[in-house]
């Protein structure tokens, strides 16, 4: 008696991007370095841009608080800086021979974002201290 299975049918990737070893190097390097870069950039406070929503002003780099301008937003800048640096590293990885990039441990892709969470929680200490004082 035969048994049918509903396990997903695995076929060869149809997209040329998915078959490309260079894209593999880019994607894995980008995703591994991204969480690390994000934490470092946020810690060192290197936003690519600063946005002032109250006056709809966008400036390059970090612009500290100014009178009568409302709050500034740095998160866009941190994210953009992270994407640019991670993409640059990904492009460098594309230039490295495949025999070297194949050795990058794939589990780092999901371990680094988990390791980033405690740092992110710590970086929000301002909020937790205010909450604790209540």
């Amino acid at each position, binding site marked *: 008696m035969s048994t049918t*299975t*509903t396990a*997903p*049918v695995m076929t060869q990737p149809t997209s040329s991007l998915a078959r490309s070893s260079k894209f593999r190097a880019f994607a894995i390097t980008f995703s591994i370095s991204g969480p690390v870069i994000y934490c470092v950039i946020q810690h060192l406070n290197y936003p690519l841009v600063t946005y002032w929503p109250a006056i709809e002003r966008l400036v390059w780099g970090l612009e500290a608080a100014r009178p009568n301008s409302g709050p500034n937003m740095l998160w866009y800048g941190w994210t953009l800086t992270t994407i640019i640096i991670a993409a640059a590293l990904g492009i460098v990885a594309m230039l490295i021979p495949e025999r070297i990039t194949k050795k990058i441990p794939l589990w780092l*892709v999901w*371990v680094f*974002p988990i390791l980033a969470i405690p740092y*992110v929680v710590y970086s*929000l200490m301002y909020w937790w201290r205010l909450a604790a004082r209540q």
Partner: protein
Amino acid sequence: MRSLISTNTFWTLWLFVHLICALGLLGALTHQAMAVALPVRKPAAGIVSRFRAVPAAGYATAVCVLYVITFLIGSFIYTQYRIAIRIPLEAQHYYKTGGFFDFKEHVASLGLVLLPAYWYFWKNAQNPEYDNARKGVTLVLAAMVWFLFIVGHVLNNTRGFAS
């Protein structure tokens, strides 16, 4: 568009679109996470088995597109949040709520950078070399999206629609 409708309606509509995209993303990623965590080996009988038995690989591009769209709309709404929501939240001493929203923004960025590897692993689902990494990154991304959704939902209840 802002001259045709009130400011409140304008932002409420964007918040609603953000919610719809987030729901689609949440559904697709939860299907995938269940499919990799508890793969179905026998014909799907019950509703839970059928939920796990979806052709998960086909969701990868949709998840990436939905994540980016939801992220971009959320980034747009964030400008209004910073002025109209966060300042009153701080004034009313809702510090944990404010803190969790900042936590959400960081998690959203961490999730965004995972997408290239996530997409690549799923597009090469026939390659057993990527099985563990695909499972790990899908479960982490699904946990992140659930976190983003729940924090967004709680924040909306605190000061969201029509506030």
